[in-house]
C-alpha cells in the first residue's frame, strides 16, 4: 500500500501545502506510461487553503522527466561531459579543490548558494565553506532577491523577517498597499488573502505595468498607480510628505516607538505632491487620496516586492516604505504592519543561516566576536578557524578567474548564468575558472558550463525544513525514493568534507543537521533553538524567533523592536539623481520580471510540458503606440540591445505597459536571457543589482526565410 506525504510545494516562498501520493507504478504503468511517480493534491493550510497554482499542480512532472540527470557528469579531455561514478566525480572535485587551495589560498575557492535550499542544506553549505574549504567567499542568489529589503528591515527594526505577522492577518485588512509585487502571477494562491481589502475598496497596487495583480484593483476594489520605472523612491517620499504636511502622522506612536522623526520631516519637505507628479507620472490628487486612505485608520498593511527592491537604491526605497509604515504607526499593531514578500522557496530560511557572505547561523554577524565564539563552540573549532566576511554575489562573480580572485566555484541551487545581471560578463568570468562544480537536477544553462555536474534529489525525495515568507518553519517530507544515481546535497557535502580531511561534523540526516542548526542559531536573531521536528510533525504553527524552552513568535514588534533600546529607526533617505537615468530619445526602460508559468531561471518549469507549452519563449511586452513607431507588429521578432548585450525574441503588444518601457521575463536562457541587458551596478548598502531600470534600444528583426 502506498503512503502519502504531507509536504509543501517545491517552488515559491508561499510554500503551499500539498500532499504527495506515490502512484502505484506496477498497477498504472501499463495503463499510462506517462504517469508521474506521485500524485499532487492541494492540502488545507492557512496560506494556500488547499489551493495550488499551475506550477504546483504540475510539479511532479519533473521527478521522472527524461532530461533529469541520473549520474554525475565529468568533463573529459575531449571537452565533453561524460557520465562518471560518484566516487570518481567526488575524487576529481576534491583533488582539484585541494590543488587550487594549496596553490592560490583558501579564498580561491568560492561557493554560490541558493534561496531554494532547505534550512539544513543552507546551514551545512555555510559550515562547509567556512570549515571544509576555509573560504570566506560564499554568497548566494538571494542577493538578487531579498538583500535590499533585508538590509532595510535590519536597519529599521533590527531584524529581518519578511512578514512579521501570519499571512492570514491580511484577510481582515481594510487597505493593503502592494509596492512592486505581482503576486497574482508569482504566488497566485496569495491573492485569496487580498479579498478583504478588495471588498473594502482598499487594494492599492503600485507597478509601472498593469499586471494581473494591478487588475485586481479594478471595479472599485482599489487603485492602481503606474509610476515611471525607477521613481518608486520619489513616490514614497511624496506620500510621506503628504502624511506629514496634512498632520496624518501617528505622533504618539512615533514618539513612543521610534527615533529619527526630525530628519525624516526635513528629508521630505522638498517632495511636495506636484513635484512628485512631475517625477513619477502619478497625479498629485491620487497621491493625496492614497496618503489619506492609508492614514484613515482600520487595518492597513504596506508590502514591498522585488519591483521596488531590485534597484541600485533598493535599500533606500524599502526604507522609505518602512518609514511610511512607521509614521502611520503600523508595525507592531495587530491587524496592521509592514512586510516584504519573500520570493524563493526558502528565501527566508536561506538568508538566516550562513549562506550570506557576512553572516553566521541565526542571522549572526560574522564580524561579531561573540557570534563567532558561539558558532565556533557549536562547530567544535576555535573562533579563529572561521574566516572573516567575504564579498557579495556580484563582486564574487566579478572576481572569478581574476588575479587574487576565485578559481574554483561550487554552485548549489542556482542557475547563475540566467539569473545574474550582465550575463555576458558572468559567462566570461566562468570561462576563466579552473573548476566549476554544479549541483542540479537538470543540465541547466550553468550546469552545461561545469567541469563536474552532480545530480541531486528533488523535493519529493527528501526530508528537511523550509521557512516560509511569514517566518514559519515547516516540514518538507519525502514521498518517494530518489532515482538510483542521484544523491542528497547533505551527503555530497559530507563526502567532500571527508575527502578534504575536514574533521568537523557533517551529518547526512536532515534531522541531525537541524538539531545542530538549533544550537548554532541559539541566542541569535533568527533563533530556532526551541524548534524540533517532532513539534513540526505534530502540525504546530511555529514562527521564529523560538528560543529553547520558550514559545514561537507569530507577531513581532508588539512591545519592542529588535534594536537594543527597543525602538525602530526612522532613517532619512533621499533620491540620488544618478540612480535611474531616464531614457533618451530612441531608448526604452527595460523592466524585467516574472510570468505565472515559470519559476526563477526556468531551469525547472521550462521542462514541464504544460508550462512550457503555455509560455514557450520570452516575449517582449511593448505598448502598441511604441510598436507602431518602431514598425513592430504583434508576434514579430525584435532585438533589444544595449552596450552589455542583445536579446532576440518575439514582441507581444499590450496596453498594460507604459509606452516608454518594455517588459521581459527573465526565465529564459541563451539569446532570450533578459539579464544579458541588465547592469551589474549594485546598491551601496545591500549589493543588490539593478534589474528594473536598464535602458535598451529595440528594433524589428527581419525574418529571412531560408529555402529548404
Amino acid at each position, binding site marked *: 500500500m502506498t503512503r502519502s506525504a504531507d509536504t509543501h510545494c517545491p517552488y515559491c516562498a508561499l510554500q503551499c501545502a500539498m500532499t504527495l501520493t506515490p502512484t502505484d507504478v506496477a498497477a498504472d504503468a501499463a495503463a499510462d506510461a506517462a504517469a508521474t511517480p506521485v500524485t499532487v493534491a*492541494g492540502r488545507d493550510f492557512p496560506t*494556500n*487553503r488547499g*489551493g*495550488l*497554482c*499551475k506550477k504546483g*499542480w504540475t510539479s511532479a512532472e519533473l521527478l521522472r522527466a527524461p532530461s533529469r540527470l541520473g549520474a554525475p557528469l565529468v568533463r573529459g579531455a575531449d571537452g565533453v561531459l561524460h557520465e562518471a561514478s560518484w566516487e570518481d566525480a567526488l575524487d576529481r572535485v576534491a583533488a582539484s579543490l585541494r590543488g587550487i587551495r594549496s596553490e592560490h589560498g583558501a579564498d580561491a575557492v568560492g561557493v554560490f548558494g541558493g534561496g531554494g535550499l532547505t534550512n539544513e542544506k543552507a546551514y551545512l553549505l555555510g559550515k562547509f565553506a567556512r570549515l571544509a574549504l576555509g573560504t570566506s567567499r560564499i554568497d548566494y542568489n538571494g542577493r538578487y532577491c531579498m538583500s535590499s529589503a533585508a538590509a532595510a528591515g535590519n536597519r529599521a527594526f533590527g531584524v529581518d523577517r519578511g512578514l512579521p505577522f501570519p499571512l492570514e492577518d491580511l484577510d481582515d485588512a481594510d487597505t493593503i498597499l502592494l509596492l512592486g509585487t505581482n503576486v*497574482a*502571477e508569482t504566488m*497566485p*494562491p*496569495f*491573492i*485569496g488573502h487580498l*479579498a478583504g481589502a478588495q471588498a473594502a475598496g482598499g487594494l492599492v497596487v503600485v507597478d509601472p505595468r*498593469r499586471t*494581473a495583480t494591478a*487588475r485586481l484593483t*479594478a471595479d472599485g476594489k482599489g487603485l492602481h498607480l503606474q509610476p*515611471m520605472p525607477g521613481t518608486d523612491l520619489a513616490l514614497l517620499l511624496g506620500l510621506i*510628505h503628504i502624511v*506629514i*504636511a*496634512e*498632520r496624518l502622522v501617528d505622533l504618539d506612536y512615533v514618539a513612543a516607538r521610534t527615533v529619527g522623526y526630525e*530628519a525624516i*520631516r*526635513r528629508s521630505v*519637505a*522638498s517632495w*511636495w505632491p*506636484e*513635484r512628485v*507628479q*512631475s517625477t*513619477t*507620472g*502619478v*497625479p*498629485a*490628487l491620487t497621491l*493625496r487620496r492614497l496618503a489619506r486612505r492609508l492614514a484613515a485608520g482600520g487595518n492597513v498593511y504596506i508590502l514591498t516586492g522585488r519591483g521596488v527592491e531590485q534597484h541600485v537604491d533598493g535599500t533606500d526605497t524599502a526604507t522609505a516604505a518602512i518609514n511610511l509604515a512607521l509614521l502611520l504607526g503600523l508595525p507592531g499593531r495587530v491587524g496592521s504592519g509592514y512586510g516584504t514578500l519573500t520570493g524563493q522557496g526558502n528565501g527566508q530560511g536561506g538568508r538566516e543561516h550562513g549562506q550570506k557572505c557576512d553572516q553566521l547561523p541565526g542571522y549572526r554577524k560574522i564580524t561579531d566576536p561573540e557570534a563567532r565564539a558561539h558558532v565556533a563552540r557549536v562547530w567544535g573549532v576555535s573562533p579563529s578557524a572561521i574566516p572573516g566576511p567575504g564579498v557579495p554575489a556580484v563582486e564574487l562573480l566579478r572576481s572569478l578567474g581574476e588575479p587574487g580572485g576565485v578559481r574554483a566555484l561550487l554552485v548549489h541551487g542556482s542557475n547563475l548564468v540566467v539569473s545574474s545581471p550582465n550575463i555576458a560578463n558572468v559567462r566570461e568570468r566562468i570561462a576563466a575558472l579552473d573548476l566549476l562544480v554544479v549541483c542540479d537536477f537538470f543540465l541547466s544553462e550553468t550546469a552545461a558550463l561545469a567541469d563536474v555536474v552532480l545530480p541531486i534529489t528533488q523535493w519529493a525525495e527528501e526530508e528537511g525544513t523550509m521557512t516560509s515568507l511569514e517566518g514559519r518553519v515547516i516540514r518538507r517530507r519525502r514521498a518517494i525514493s530518489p532515482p538510483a544515481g542521484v544523491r542528497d546535497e547533505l551527503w555530497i557535502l559530507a563526502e567532500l568534507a571527508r575527502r578534504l580531511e575536514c574533521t568537523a561534523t557533517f551529518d547526512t540526516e536532515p534531522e541531525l543537521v537541524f538539531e545542530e542548526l538549533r544550537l548554532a542559531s541559539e541566542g541569535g536573531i533568527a533563533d530556532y533553538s526551541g524548534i524540533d521536528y517532532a513539534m513540526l510533525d505534530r502540525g504546530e504553527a511555529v514562527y521564529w524567533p523560538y528560543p529553547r524552552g520558550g514559545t514561537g513568535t507569530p507577531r513581532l514588534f508588539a512591545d519592542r523592536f529588535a534594536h537594543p533600546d527597543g525602538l525602530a529607526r526612522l532613517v532619512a533617505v533621499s533620491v540620488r539623481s544618478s540612480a535611474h537615468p*531616464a*531614457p*533618451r*530619445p530612441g531608448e526604452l526602460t527595460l523592466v524585467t520580471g516574472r510570468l*505565472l*508559468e515559470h519559476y526563477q531561471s526556468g531551469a525547472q518549469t521550462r521542462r514541464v510540458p504544460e508550462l512550457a507549452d*503555455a509560455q514557450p519563449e520570452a516575449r517582449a511586452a511593448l*505598448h502598441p*503606440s*511604441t510598436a*507602431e*513607431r518602431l514598425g513592430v507588429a504583434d508576434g514579430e521578432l525584435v532585438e533589444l540591445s544595449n552596450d552589455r548585450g542583445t536579446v532576440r525574441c518575439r514582441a507581444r503588444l*499590450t*496596453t*498594460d505597459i507604459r*509606452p*516608454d518601457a518594455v517588459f521581459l521575463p527573465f526565465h529564459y536562457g541563451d539569446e532570450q536571457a533578459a539579464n544579458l541587458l541588465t547592469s551589474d551596478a549594485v546598491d551601496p548598502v545591500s549589493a543588490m543589482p539593478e534589474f528594473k531600470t536598464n535602458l535598451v534600444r529595440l528594433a524589428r528583426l527581419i525574418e529571412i526565410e531560408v529555402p529548404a
Partner: protein
Amino acid sequence: MSQLRIVLIGYGPVGARFVEEVLPAVEDGSIALTVVAGEDVEAYNRVLVAEYAVGNTELGAMLVGDRAAAEAAGARVLLGVAATSIDRSARIVQLDSGEELEYDRVVFATGSRANVPTLDGVERHRRDADSLRKYATQLVARDDALPAGITALRDLADAERVLAAVQSRKRIIVLGAGVLGLELALAAAHAGAQVCVVHHGPHPMPRNLDRGGGLVLRAALRRSGVTVVAHSRAEAVAFRTDDDGSRRFDMVVTADGKQLRGDLLVLSCGVSPRNELATLAGLRTAVGVVVGAGLASWTDPHVFAIGDCAQVVPRTEELAGQRVLPGAPSGLIGPGWRQAEWLAAHFIASVTDHGSTDAAAPAERDAIVMLKAEHIDVVAVGDISADPWDDDAVHPRRRVSQWADPEHLRYVKMVTEDGALTGFVSVGMPRTAAELTLLFERRGELPADRSVLLRFDGPDYDPSADADAFAPGSTVCWCNGVTVGRIEEAAVCGATTVEGVGRETRAGTGCGGCKGRVAEILARAAETDETPSVTA
C-alpha cells in the same frame, strides 16, 4: 591646501541645498562656511507658503535646512543677521550686526521679493544704484513696508497675515492671476474664505497659457468658488479707518472704475531678484545678478549667484557691450537646486585637487509650470502660442494637436517639432499632464496616435477592458492560467459543476477567487446548450 572661505548670503531652500552639498568639505576642514541667513528662521520650503497661509500645513513640515547638522560640521549659521555691503577689493562682507566677514568666495542666494505694483496709495521704492547709495539702510536687505490690510505672499509673516484672514473667513482680494496668486486663491476658497482674483489680462496665467487653456482654467476657478475679474488694471487702493482708529485697506479701484471691496489685499504681481547688495557692490546686474555659465559674476570671479537672484547669461563679447541682457531667473525651485548642487561640487573639486566638474552648470530648459491646487490640474511649458491650423511654411516641422472640452473643464495642447514635445498645456487632465511632463523633460517622442495620451484620463481607462470578459481568450483563473475558452471546452466535455471544471482544468483550485466567474460561464454555456435542444 589652504582652507577656502565661503560666505553664503541667503538661507532659503536654494541656500540650504548649497549648505547640505558643501558640508562634507566643511566637515573635513577644506572649506570654511559662513551663512548669513537674513530671516530669523531655519530654511523652509517657500513653495509651500500658500499651503501654510491657509492652514494646510505647519512650519515643521516645511523646513528643509538642517542648521544643527551644518553647525555640527563646523559651519557658522547667522540667523536674523543681514549683509549690508560688500567690499570686493578687501573681500569683506559687512553685516548689520557690525561684524565683518572675510571671504575667498561669496555666494548670493538672496532669492527674490514680491513686486509691488504702481498703485495710488501704496508707497513703492526704486532700487537703482543711486537710490541704493542714498537710502542704503532702508533699501538693502529690507522689503518695502506695506499698509495694513495689504500684503504680499512671500515669507512666513505674509502667510500669517493671510492665515488670519482665511481663518476668520474674510473677503480676500488677490491682485494678479499668476501661478502663486491662483494657488492662494484656490486654497483660500477651499478653506472657506471669499476670494476674488483681479487681473488685467484676458485670462488667468497669461504668461503660461494660451487662450483655450486660460479660458478653461477661468471656468474651473469659477466653479471652485473663486470670483475672477479679468481685463481690469488696478489703479488705486482706498483705505478705511476702523473703530480702533487704525487705517486699513478698503478697496481696489480699477482703471475702468470698478470698486472691489475686501478685508485683505494680497499682491501677487510677480517677483524681482533681491539684487541690491550686488548692485551696491558694483556687480553687473540686469533682472538678476548677472553670472556666466559657471555661475560666477561677470564682474568679479570671486562672486557667485544661484537660485532666484541669479541671471545666467553665458558671456560673449557681443553681449558684454549690450545694456539689455537676455533671459531672467526662472523663479522656480528646481533650477535653483541644480545650481546649488553644481556650485557646491565645483567648490569641493577646487579644494580637493582630484575630481573636476564640468566647466558650466547644466543648462536649463524651459521650466515646467504647475498649478498646485487640489482640484484643478494645470501644467504648461514652452511656447504654446501656435495653432493647429498655422501655416506649415513658417515652421515646417512644427505640429500642434489640441483637445478642448470646456464643459468638462478639460483642455490639452501639444506642440511638437519632429515628433518631440517643445511645449504643452494641460488643464483638468492630471494623468495626461504627468505623462507629458515626463516626455518633455526627456525630449521623448510622442506616440504617433496622440490620443493615447488623452485616454489615460478617461474615467473608464482600463487597457484590459477592450477584452470582453467572456471572450474565449480572457483569463478566468489567474492561479492556473485558465481561459474562458478552456472552461467552455470542459463544459462541453461534461464538466457541468465548478468542482468538475476544477478537476478538469484546475480553474478555481488556486486561491479560489474565480469560482463565481466559473459558475457564470457554466450558466452561459448551459443556456446556449439548451437553445438548440429546444428547437430540435
